[in-house]
C-alpha cells in the first residue's frame, strides 16, 4: 500500500514535465529547491527545537558558491559544484554554530537574523567577485555531456538531488548520530546523562542544516539563473520558517508539503500586487490557528480516520 503510493508519487514527479505547461516545470523546480531548504531547516528545528531566521544567508552562500564555480570552473559537472556549495555552506554553518548554539531560543533567532544581514553585506562588499548589487548571471551548467539549458533538464537535476537528500534525511534516525540527535530532541538533560555531547550534536545539526541549504542554494542559482543580494532578504528566511511551521515541525514529508504550499501561495498571490503581504500573512495566521501541527499532522489525523474504515469524529486538531 505504502510502496504503491510511493511508486505512484515517483511516476507523477518524473512525468510532470511532460504533463504540465512549461511554467509549472519552473515552479516545480522552485518547490523542490525550497523543499530541500525546509528539510534542512527542519533538521535543525526538529532536532534541537531552535528556529533560525538566517537560512536565506545560507542559501545565498550556497547560491554564490555554486554560481561562481559554474562561471569560473565550467569543466566541473553540476553535481560536483553542488556538493562544493553544500560543503562551503556547511563550513560557514560550523563557524557560526559553535558560538551561536550556546544561545537559547530568542537569542539564537536574533543571532541568525543578524547572520542573514551580514551575508548580504558581505556579498555587497565582495563585489569584485560577486558583482555586488549589479547581480550575477549564472550560465547553464552541465552534467556529463548534457547541458542544463532547459527548465526540464534543471527540474530533473533538482529532483534527483532532492531524492538523495530526502532519503538521507529519512534514514538519519537509524544511525548512531541520528539516535543521539533524537535523544537530544526528547530531553537534553537525559541525553547528556547518557553520554551524548550536547554542544557537539547541536552543532552537527546546525552544520547538516547548513549543508542542505547550501546545496539548495546551488540549485537555486541554476534554476533562477540570476543572483543578486536583493534575492536573499529577511523575508525569504521568514518564508522558510513558515514552510516548516505550515508543513509540520520535525517532519520530512511536512517540509516538502510546506515548501509546496508556501511557494505556490507566493506565486499565485503575485497578481494581488500590494495586497500580497496582507493576504499571505492572513493565510499563515489562519493555518497556524487551525493546524498547529502543520499539514503533516493534519494529514496523519485524517489517515487515522480513513484507515479505521468507518466514519468517526477525528481527534481534536487544535488545543488552544
Amino acid at each position, binding site marked *: 500500500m505504502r510502496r504503491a503510493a510511493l511508486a505512484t508519487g515517483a511516476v507523477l514527479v518524473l512525468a510532470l514535465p511532460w504533463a504540465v505547461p512549461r511554467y509549472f516545470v519552473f515552479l516545480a523546480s522552485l518547490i523542490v529547491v525550497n523543499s530541500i531548504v525546509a528539510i534542512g531547516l527542519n533538521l535543525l528545528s526538529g532536532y534541537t527545537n531552535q528556529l533560525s531566521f538566517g537560512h536565506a544567508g545560507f542559501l545565498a552562500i550556497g547560491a554564490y558558491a555554486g554560481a561562481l564555480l559554474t562561471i569560473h570552473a565550467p569543466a566541473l559537472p553540476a553535481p560536483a559544484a553542488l556538493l562544493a556549495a553544500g560543503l562551503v555552506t556547511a563550513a560557514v554553518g560550523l563557524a557560526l554554530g559553535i558560538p551561536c548554539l550556546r544561545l537559547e531560543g530568542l537569542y539564537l533567532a536574533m543571532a541568525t537574523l543578524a547572520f542573514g544581514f551580514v551575508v548580504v553585506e558581505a556579498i555587497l562588499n565582495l563585489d569584485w567577485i560577486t558583482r555586488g548589487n549589479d*547581480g550575477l548571471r549564472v550560465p547553464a551548467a552541465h552534467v556529463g555531456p548534457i547541458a542544463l539549458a532547459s527548465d526540464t533538464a534543471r527540474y530533473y537535476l533538482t529532483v534527483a538531488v532532492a531524492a538523495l537528500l530526502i532519503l538521507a534525511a529519512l534514514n538519519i534516525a537509524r544511525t548512531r548520530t541520528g539516535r543521539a540527535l533524537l535523544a537530544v530532541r526528547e530531553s537534553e538533560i537525559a541525553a547528556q546523562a547518557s553520554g551524548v555531547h550536547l554542544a557537539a550534536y547541536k552543532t552537527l545539526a546546525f552544520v547538516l542544516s547548513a549543508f542542505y541549504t547550501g546545496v539548495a542554494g546551488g540549485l537555486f542559482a541554476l534554476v533562477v539563473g540570476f*543572483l543578486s543580494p536583493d534575492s536573499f532578504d529577511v523575508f525569504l528566511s521568514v518564508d522558510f520558517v513558515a514552510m516548516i511551521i505550515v508543513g509540520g515541525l520535525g517532519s520530512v514529508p511536512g517540509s516538502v508539503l510546506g515548501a509546496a504550499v508556501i511557494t505556490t501561495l507566493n506565486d499565485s498571490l503575485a497578481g494581488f*500586487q*500590494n495586497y500580497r503581504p496582507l493576504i499571505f500573512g492572513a493565510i499563515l495566521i489562519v493555518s497556524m490557528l*487551525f493546524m498547529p501541527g502543520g499539514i503533516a499532522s493534519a494529514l496523519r489525523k485524517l489517515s487515522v480516520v480513513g484507515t479505521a474504515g468507518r466514519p468517526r469524529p477525528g481527534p481534536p486538531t487544535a488545543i488552544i
Partner: protein
Amino acid sequence: MAIRAPFLLLLALVLATATPASAQSPGVSDKEIVIGSSNSFSGPLAFTGEQITKFGVDLYLKVVNEAGGIHGRTIRTIYYDDGYRPQDAVANTKKLVEQDKIFAVIIPQGSPPVVATLDYLEENKVPLLFPYQSSPVTRRKRYVFQGMTLSDRSSKMMIDYLAGPRKLKKFAALYQDDEYGKSFLTAFEKDLGRFGLKLVAAESVKRGVTDVSAQIAKLQAARPEVTFLVLVPGPAAQALIERQKIGWTDTLMVSTGPLTDERYLALAGDAAEGVEGLSLWPDPLLSDLPGVKLYREHMQKYFPKNEPNRYSIAGYFAGMLFAEGAKRAGRNLTRESLIAALESIKGYESGILPPITISTDHETQKQGFWVRVEKGRFKPLTDWLKSE
C-alpha cells in the same frame, strides 16, 4: 477535511489558470492584445511601480480602449509584484510569457529585476518595451526598446552643459553603490576627460542607507564647484539637509535624471532651494505642453484622487508609444511586425517630449533639460538638451 480544503482549492486554482494556446501571435486574439510586466508593488519602489503601471500605462490604455482600441482590439494588462527581488521577477516574467501568453513586456522597473529577465526574454523573442531603469545593459538587444534616457546620455548632457556654457571645472559625485550609480560614475569620468577634467572626489552610498553625513564631510573637504547626486530620493534629500546643516554653500548640487522628481523635492524641503538638475520629463503639474495637459485631463477623468507625477506620466508615455507601434503594425500584429513598426517611428509628436525618433538603436528617449529649484518647484533653465 475542511481544514486543508482552502489549500487544495488554491492549488487547484493555480493549476486551472492555464490558458489555451491561441493560433495567432501569443497575446493577440481577434478582440484583444495582452501585455504586462513584473513590477514593484511592495518593497522600496512600490510607489513608483504602482504609478507607472496602474496610473500610467493603464491610464493611456483606458483612453485607447474607450475609443475602440487598436484595429478593433482592446488592450488588457497583467502585472505581478516582484518587490524588487530578481528571482521573483524571473518567476513572474516566465509566468507572464508561458502561462498568460502576453504579447510583450511593458515598463518593468529597476536594474536588477530587469537584468535578471533580459536573456530569457531575448531567447524567447518577447519584446521588452521601455524598461524603467537607466543602466546601458539593455543596449543592442534585438527585442528590447529602452525607455528612460540611459545614464551615459544623461552624463553627456550634464557635463556638456556644466563644463561648456556654465564653465565649471571642479566636479565631485555622491553615488549609489550599484549599477545605477556606477554606470553614471563611469560616464562622468569619460565625459569630463573630453574637457581635460576629472572628478576631484567620489563618495559612495550603500543602497538602503540614509545617513550620508560622513560622505558629505569628505566631499566638502575636496572643495568641488559641482557635486552630482546619483542617488534615490531618500538619501539624496538627506544629503541636501546635511549640507544645509553644516553650512556648505560653495558647491552646486546637481541631481541626475532619474532623481529629479517631486518626491525628492518634497523630502528635502527648503534645503532643496537653488539645487539644479537634469529633468527627463516636463513638470507634470504645471507644464502647458498639449500632451501634458491632456495627461492631466485623463488623470482627472479616470483617477481624480491620484495627483499627477512623473512616474505616471512615464507610464502614460510608454502606453502611448506601444499604442503607436501597434497601430503602425496594422491588423496583422506579430512580435516581429511590432518591432519593425517601432523602428519606423520618426519625428513622432507626443506633445510631452520633443519629437521621438526610434531607429535601430531602440532608444526611445535621448534628451533632458536643465532645471533649478525655485520656491519648491523645478524651473526650466534651458530648452531640451541633446545627447547625440
